[in-house]
């Protein structure tokens, strides 16, 4: 690192740090959905990345639709696309839970295989519908450009937007899980399914909506993802392992843990990436995680739920 001056290093840290924040936002949005599904229900959803891709493709579809039929609405379509991504992915998640997952709650390892099968089918569907090439939506003008606080620091606007979106979604999830009566029922079901059923909570319905919510948030992650990179049929599968690491490292049932671990993983990776090659940065980050998890299997914030 000798060849950089201190002010240069500071700028590098700020810019890589901000690149890390974009990665953090997408990882956190993905992981929030997964943490709800895995942490609250114990289901391993290997198709989670594909639900993210559903969101990304929905955004792309909306962008092409607006561009060809209602070009005047271009500045606003993105907000609607986010909402629609949530609804489409959530609806698909609802259907998947109804058709597939609910039969497998007693066999967690089998949900892993079944959802992997689902992910293969979804990937091929993307390929058949949208083609094998990577696509990206036309972003509205207000997401382009960057903010320059000093000469050497250059922060892209889309990253800031994604960060804001992530903050809103995270607060929303917190509100839903910890302040609403629905969240109370979800947490009750997690802690003791049989007792919750006995006091009149419809646990099956809770499961279905929890799964749908998790998938819907993955859809939002997909919409956010389109502002950062282009989407292909296998995009989702590239992020699924990282996302699982975020959830496991954070401690499965802890939302604070998920945020902290998404932040540290994304920052570690993007700052390392500047100094060594991208692939080695990933190797070191994942290796460090595996080693930490071997010594501390319950993750950063252990869940207090008895299982």
């Amino acid at each position, binding site marked *: 690192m000798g060849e950089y001056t201190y002010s240069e290093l500071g700028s590098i840290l700020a810019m890589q740090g901000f690149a890390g924040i974009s990665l953090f936002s997408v990882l956190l949005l993905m992981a929030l959905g997964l943490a709800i599904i895995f942490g609250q229900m114990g289901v391993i959803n290997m198709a989670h990345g594909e639900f993210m891709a559903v969101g990304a493709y929905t955004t792309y579809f909306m962008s092409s639709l607006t561009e060809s039929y209602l070009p005047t609405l271009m500045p606003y379509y993105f907000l609607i696309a986010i909402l629609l991504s949530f609804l489409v992915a959530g609806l698909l998640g609802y259907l998947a839970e109804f058709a597939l997952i609910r039969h497998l709650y007693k066999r*967690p390892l089998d949900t892993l295989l079944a959802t992997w099968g689902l992910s293969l089918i979804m990937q091929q569907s993307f390929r058949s519908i949208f083609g094998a090439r990577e696509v990206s939506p036309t972003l509205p003008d207000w997401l382009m450009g960057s903010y320059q606080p000093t000469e050497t620091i250059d922060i892209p606007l889309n990253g800031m937007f994604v960060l804001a979106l992530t903050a809103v979604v995270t607060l929303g999830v917190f509100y839903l899980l910890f302040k609403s009566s629905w969240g109370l029922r979800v947490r009750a079901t997690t802690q003791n399914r049989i007792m919750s059923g006995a006091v009149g909570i419809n646990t099956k319905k809770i499961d279905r909506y929890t799964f749908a919510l998790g998938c819907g948030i993955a859809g939002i992650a997909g919409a956010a993802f389109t502002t950062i990179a282009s989407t292909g049929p296998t995009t989702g599968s590239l992020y699924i392992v990282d996302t699982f690491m975020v959830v496991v490292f954070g401690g499965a049932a802890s939302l604070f843990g998920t945020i902290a671990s998404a932040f540290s993983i994304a920052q570690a990776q993007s700052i390392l990436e500047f100094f060594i090659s991208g692939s080695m940065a990933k190797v070191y980050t994942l290796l460090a995680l595996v080693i930490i998890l*071997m010594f501390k299997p319950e993750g950063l914030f252990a869940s207090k739920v008895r299982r």
Partner: protein
Amino acid sequence: MSFVYEKLMGGKSGLTGFIILATLILVIFPTFLDLFRLNLVGKYLTYAFAAVSLVLLWGYGGTLSLGQGIFFGLGGYGMAMFLKLEASSPENTAIQSTPGIPDFMDWNQITSLPWFWEPFNSFTFTILAILILPAAFAYLVGAAMFKRRVGGVYFAIITQVIAVILTVLIVGQQGFTGGINGITDLRTLHGWDITSNNAKYIFYFVNCFLLLGVIVLSRFILTSKFGRLLLAMRDKEDRVRFSGYDVSNFKIFIFCIAALISAIGGAMFTLQVGFMSPSFVGIVPSIEMVIFCAIGGRMSLIGAVYGTLLINFGKTTFSESFPELWLFLMGGLFISVVMFFPNGLAGIWDDYGHYLTDRLKQLKDKFTTVVLNREPKQLAEDAG
């Protein structure tokens, strides 16, 4: 004798299944398939090692590893490194700027053989490395996880992450590993041309015998007291622990055995196919191995072999003619096998196979009664 019969073959039904499988791969395939197809079957049968290892680990042990590709890859790369060093003798590589090192190292401006490649000049070391390194690695991972009572889903995810790390490492460190293309252009083993027809036949049969040997060994493990404990652990781990057994050691042991079996498969893969690449190490191949095992029947050693053959035949046929349909079909298979046939083909055979065998038995009875009924009459007429 009865010990051998019961313990190694699994009694009458086990022996019948074993003989049918042995006849199929040792007699029927070599007789009816041309060399190209036979070589292909040989390649599939190397995956069957991994599938059989998953029967032990997952079917009986209840621990799903999504990283059998790691061990398959370690075995395969071990063999490939030896063969590559033999192929890169200073005479063969005289046009390189540094003769005597593998070509991909030369392309990546590496001027001397890295230290961890050195020992692979020796064939003895290579064989030992293939047998010991993957198992030792499995011991490390297994000890770290099982001693802390990490299992189930977490174990599956961690093994998957390790598979990702290894793939990224291999692809990223092109100069040392051959990168995404892997280690290619492997020609000779101790001066013997491994691409010749002769060698292909020999490797095919060696592979078959090793596979059958692995099945017998696994059967021995499963019918021993250890096998019973394994099942007990899968169904009620705490009960076994409270009975005074050290559960983690049993799990570590079976994980090491599974790693060893997969590594043998990997080494045979390199010998038969003539190269090794990271696309046989990562998440996708590892999960495919699980599905071979699941389709065949996670509780059946022989079923796993059939599952592997069937899926790979399907994959080759379908991806040649309808590449689009294959992923749909594969995904559908994953879902349906998990939801409707948790014990795979072997389970279907156990549930419905008796209709077939009963029918055969009926035919046989009918035949014998007809023949027997006729015989006395015939004899009487002849006498009369």
